[in-house]
């Protein structure tokens, strides 16, 4: 990849030549796919062989080597920043750890290169793991500051702990490795080795987003709170992202050290981290190709613009600003958008989708949820003020009350977004008062939000698949099982024909349905719905009412917040009324909706007349 932009040779041509295959597209998607893969392999091989085909000066080979090793570290940034949305300004630290492991390991300790490489990856990954743990409490600009400090400490250690690191002088005389008796002392051979590593890293980073973990990463980027509530252990996934990212940084650094034979602390300082950041943003943070494209450009550009040397960092800064303003998805994002215009979504055969299995056996007569004297205070405000209630299995239990009476707060305490100030919550006989939201999702508590919380830059089906992959979901783990479950859930809410669309392009009401489908895909036994009818018209509300009744028929318990009294009356078995965080009435709809206190605080006069 790196070499293409440098040489400007007619390498892209094969890609164009595959296009005449397009007319066969509608009939043979597999053949087209195979054609594309073959084309990609041909291009990749040609690029890797450029140094052997054309005569390149050692100087140019060095630049290519730099680009290839940097690009591996930048692919780490793709994982942590592009996929997971976590800022990392310490990638040069992990790059440096890999480099020093190889430098010191081979030169000082006399270890074999491959052993030192593995050590470097291990050390970098461990450091990334530790840094990832800090995201438990910190995010956004605080995380940025932590990573900067991490980077600075690393640099200070490199410079000052000269007994071990050889200080500012750095490590020199790092040898090239050999494999099966083959020595990579020739620059071209070593570059080929780097390219192979780069291709492997690219394949891994390209493959990752479609996996369970990759989807979880992107969900965290799009909406961390929703991801946690849907059942993703967000801390674990963020730590995985940091660990993978730093391991890639370590690989890049290890290859760099051996390639250039000499390393010193200033190869791995803060400005290098900023450079990695710029590369990934410039190229496009959300794709493996973007990271490599950005790296190539930013390594080759300065060579063309040598006269800029002194204001190098200023140019980087300017590039970041301009890209953020004009190309928020980077160069690859722009290319991607162009390509997507020609992509026709494969139509979904709705009749072939299996019916959604939602059955929850209702045999136990005990309440599924019981709250005892539940309290949630914000400073002096008692948003939930000593609520005791029981929700029976297989019923629709509705919470109503004036705006600001504590309904949504109560839901947030129920699924763990807020910690209760006092009291306790028992779910299915287990005390869950102190568990995390994703653990509650794992027990079968599903949730939708008042102000829709979907993953806007993911497709409809991906959103719902995230719901299907909660822990303990009886539907199975495989990609195919998740996909089928998601399609069934979409069919259940009548949205299967929108499966491949991007969520952010859907109208409000459809987004609501997708959110319900996401919750149902997790096969919940208990479903918290916060104003599901908001933004639906009368017809759609009636459909929703029927849907809720169907859910109840399957044995699900629904805990509902809703303002549409028609709907509430139609579906509720029990209604609880809140006012100022306290329960003011509870019982069957016919009783509660005619309760004078409820009419005065909530329903008002007209509704009174209608009811």
């Amino acid at each position: 990849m790196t070499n293409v932009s440098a040489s400007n040779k007619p390498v892209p041509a094969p890609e164009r030549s595959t296009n005449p295959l397009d007319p066969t597209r509608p009939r043979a998607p597999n053949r087209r796919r195979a054609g594309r893969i073959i084309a990609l392999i041909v291009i990749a091989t040609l690029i890797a062989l450029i140094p052997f085909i054309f005569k390149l000066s050692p100087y140019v080979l060095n630049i290519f080597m730099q680009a290839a090793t940097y690009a591996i570290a930048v692919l780490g940034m793709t994982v942590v920043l592009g996929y997971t949305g976590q800022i990392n300004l310490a990638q040069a630290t992990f790059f440096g750890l890999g480099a020093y492991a190889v430098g010191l390991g081979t030169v000082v300790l006399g270890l074999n290169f491959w052993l030192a490489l593995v050590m470097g990856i291990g050390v970098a990954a461990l450091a990334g793991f530790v840094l990832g743990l800090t995201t438990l409490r910190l995010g956004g600009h605080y995380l940025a500051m932590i990573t900067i400090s991490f980077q600075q400490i690393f640099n200070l250690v490199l410079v000052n702990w000269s007994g071990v690191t050889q200080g500012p002088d750095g490590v020199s005389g790092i040898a090239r490795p050999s494999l099966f008796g083959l020595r990579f002392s020739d620059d071209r051979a070593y570059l080929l080795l780097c390219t192979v590593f780069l291709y492997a890293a690219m394949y891994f980073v390209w493959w990752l987003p479609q996996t369970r973990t990759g989807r979880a990463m992107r969900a965290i980027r799009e909406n961390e709170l929703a991801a946690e509530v849907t059942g993703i252990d967000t801390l674990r996934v963020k730590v995985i992202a940091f660990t993978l990212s730093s391991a890639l940084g370590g690989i890049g650094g290890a290859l760099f050290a051996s390639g250039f034979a000499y390393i010193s602390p200033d190869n791995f300082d803060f400005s290098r981290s900023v450079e990695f950041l710029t590369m990934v943003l410039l190229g496009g943070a959300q794709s493996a190709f973007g990271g490599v494209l950005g790296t190539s450009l930013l390594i080759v550009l300065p060579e063309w613009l040598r006269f800029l040397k002194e204001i190098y960092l200023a140019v980087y800064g300017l590039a970041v600003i301009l890209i953020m303003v004009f190309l928020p998805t980077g160069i690859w994002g722009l290319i991607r958008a162009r390509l997507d215009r020609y992509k026709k979504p494969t139509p979904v055969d709705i009749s072939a989708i299996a019916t959604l299995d939602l059955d929850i056996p209702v045999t136990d007569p005990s309440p599924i949820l019981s709250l005892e004297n539940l309290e949630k205070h914000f400073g002096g405000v008692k948003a939930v003020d000593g609520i005791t209630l029981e929700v029976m299995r297989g019923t629709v239990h509705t919470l109503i009350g004036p705006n600001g009476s504590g309904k949504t707060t109560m839901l947030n305490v129920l699924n763990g977004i807020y910690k209760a100030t006092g009291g306790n919550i028992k779910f299915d006989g287990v005390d869950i008062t102190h568990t995390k939201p994703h653990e509650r999702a794992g027990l079968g508590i599903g949730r939708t939000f008042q102000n829709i919380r979907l993953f806007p830059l993911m497709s409809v089906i991906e959103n719902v698949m995230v719901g299907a992959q909660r822990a303990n979901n009886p539907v199975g783990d495989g990609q195919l099982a998740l996909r089928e479950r998601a399609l069934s859930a979409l069919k259940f809410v009548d949205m299967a024909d929108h499966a491949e669309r991007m969520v952010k392009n859907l109208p409000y009401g459809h987004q609501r349905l997708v959110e319900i489908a996401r919750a149902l895909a997790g096969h919940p036994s208990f479903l918290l719905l916060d104003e599901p009818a908001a933004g639906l018209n009368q017809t759609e509300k009636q459909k929703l009412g029927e849907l809720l009744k169907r859910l109840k028929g399957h044995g699900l318990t629904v805990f509902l917040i809703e303002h549409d009294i028609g709907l509430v009356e139609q579906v509720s078995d029990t209604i609880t009324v809140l006012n100022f965080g306290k329960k003011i009435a509870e019982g069957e709809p016919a009783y509660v909706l005619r309760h004078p206190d409820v009419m005065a605080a909530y329903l008002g006069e007209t509704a009174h007349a209608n009811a």
Partner: protein
Amino acid sequence: MPMLELRNVQSHYGNVQALKGVSLHVERGEIVTLLGANGAGKSTTLRNISGLIPPSSGDIFFDGKPINRISPEKIVRMGLAHVPEGRRIFPGLTVKENIMIGTTARGRLQRRQMEAEVEEMYGIFPDLRRLSDALGWSLSGGQQQMLAVARGLMSKPKLLLLDEPSLGLAPIIVQQLFATIRSIRSHGTTVLLVEQNANMALSVADRGYVLATGNVLVEGTPAQLLGNEEVRAAYLGGGKRALAD
């Protein structure tokens, strides 16, 4: 000359066509409502009018002047306010500051007049008076919705676009809100209202349009629309049930 006129407006999100040629008009002093299923293009129509999305073709006239190539800020200054769906309030400002910011487009106001107008909003939404010094983010969803509507009203526009103002409000507040919409009109503001609560919307509107997949399907008075069996069945919640509710 109508206050607002749309002629064959088309609009796209990427390569998805959201409006396929919408023509409608709103006369001075009218309350007009747009009805239709989700995805019919109601919110998109409002966003095209207020300049948040430039239409891909067609013309929009406000007070006789074409506005389809004018920026949203300038359109606001011409006297057209848009209260979008989804509670866009300023989380770091107090409730009162949020309300006062609504007057920005009207230039500088006398302190006393400002206070009087804020007081008027508190009259409509008594909850907001109690929360006057609370920060925007600390409000519940329904309270934020009230605040967004109050801020829109403060710009005293010639034409007010309301996108689902009743979303997430308790029934008692919804009744007050619709009474307010009626009184806004009697103070000389024309209203274009998007609502899912069709029965409620038609109870205050002079005329309504029903949109379907980016086209205007029917236009008429509330009585005509309510009497149209097809419209009732498809968009207003079929038959007698809805009335009973």
